[in-house]
């Protein structure tokens, strides 16, 4: 047991270096000849479509980003959720039917606020950006979900997007969606957050676990994101090989449990 603990940082360092090298190699190879096939993620491509539909119906798009702090465990989950909404920020700024973005963590609020302001600046009219578009709603997950749910009933939301670090409290949001109607798209990484979303959304509206990290690739279409998916695949085979080898050693009784 003790050698394994000492060995663990070394293996972790090795995996990080392998991932970094793979990201560079696959990135370069990807730019020359795109991969033979990649599963597409229609749900992220439909996000910008929602802006147009909302613009036509005059309805509100409500984006809830969850309570994942940027210094915490869910930092990268919150960042992945923001990256998958990249195209939405630009289009919303362009059509001037901006979504209402809410979050339950201060650091995530500051970053989301930055992204929205930059979308307007990229469009060339930073003065049309209004600070109320991105709101920090509450300090605890339960009150955040309940408060966000009241916005659905107040503003008659057209589309509700629940992407990010959610747990059991997302059920308050799904209940509001059932009561007040409107379209919904949801994605989370924790099973506690996915379970209520599973009962509310159809398969094509639900983003399961690792798929949330593919949102950036679909939204920004940058080759570094597609290369990341390629590296994730490469590392996936590495993990499977590791599990099978460990199992073999374990069956043969080599190496402690």
């Amino acid at each position, binding site marked *: 047991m003790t050698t394994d603990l000492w060995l663990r940082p070394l293996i972790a360092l090795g995996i990080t270096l392998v991932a970094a090298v793979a990201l560079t190699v696959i990135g370069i190879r990807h730019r020359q000849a795109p991969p033979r096939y990649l599963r597409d993620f229609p749900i992220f491509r439909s996000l910008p479509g929602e802006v147009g539909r909302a613009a036509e119906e005059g309805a509100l798009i409500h984006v809830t980003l969850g309570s994942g702090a940027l210094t915490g465990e869910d930092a990268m989950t919150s*960042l992945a959720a923001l990256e998958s909404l990249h195209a939405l920020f630009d289009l919303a700024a362009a059509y001037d039917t901006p979504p209402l973005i809410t979050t339950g963590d201060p650091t995530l609020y500051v970053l989301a606020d930055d992204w929205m302001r930059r979308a307007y600046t990229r469009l060339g009219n930073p003065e049309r950006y209004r600070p109320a578009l991105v709101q920090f709603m509450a300090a605890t997950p339960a009150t955040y979900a309940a408060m966000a749910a009241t916005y659905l009933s107040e503003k008659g939301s057209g589309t509700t997007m629940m992407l990010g670090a959610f747990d059991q409290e997302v059920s308050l949001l799904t209940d509001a969606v059932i009561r007040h109607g409107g379209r919904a798209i949801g994605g989370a990484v924790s099973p506690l957050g996915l379970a209520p979303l599973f*009962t509310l959304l159809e398969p094509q509206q639900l983003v399961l676990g690792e798929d949330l990290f593919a949102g950036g690739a679909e939204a920004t279409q940058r080759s570094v994101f597609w290369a990341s998916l390629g590296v994730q695949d490469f590392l996936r085979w590495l993990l499977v090989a590791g599990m099978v080898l460990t199992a073999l050693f374990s069956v043969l009784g080599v190496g402690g449990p």
Partner: protein
Amino acid sequence: MFKRILPTAVAISAGLLVLLGAFIPVDPLPQIRAVLIDWAMFVGAFAFILAYLQLLRVHLTRLRRGGKGKSTSLWVVLSALVVFVLVLWQGPAGAVGQTLLRGLLAPGQSALLALTAVTLLLSGMRLFKVRRNLGSVLFLAVVLVMLIGSIPLAIVPYQGAMGTVVGVADWLQRVPALAGMRGLALGVALGILLTGLRVLFGMTRPHSDD
């Protein structure tokens, strides 16, 4: 300069230092990691101040504009200011802090999460309205076994049947659910790894204006 280059440089250097501090347990790297993490928490506190001020601004605007939701905004602003001042003055262990905790915050938030018992049930009951496939049948069957099998009945005649349901519930949690949770967790860990590496190597710069 301030918009792009400096933030990216700071993010990459601080990130790599913290990463090496975790992977190479050789002094002074772990100490540098601890200091940088402590600083990150310190700077995070300022983000909380900013978010607090923005919350007050939004609700004060709604108050000024009047109309629907005016009274709720009044409650939010008043309670936010009063509680902040009192708890800042006395601290969490003070009389005001404890009374607030036991009389308002804990019961209120518990009640909100207790509401999820009803909302989960209601959304679970509509499962077959949303999805009518093999997946939802499997989902419902496992939920039923979990609910019935998590607490064994003390009444003797049901011991036999009850035992199998409890046994199945336990097996479900120990093997297939464990496999699914691990697959989900490992997939998410890979996603976190690559998203983090993109930030650490400056390939994506969520913090800069570009």
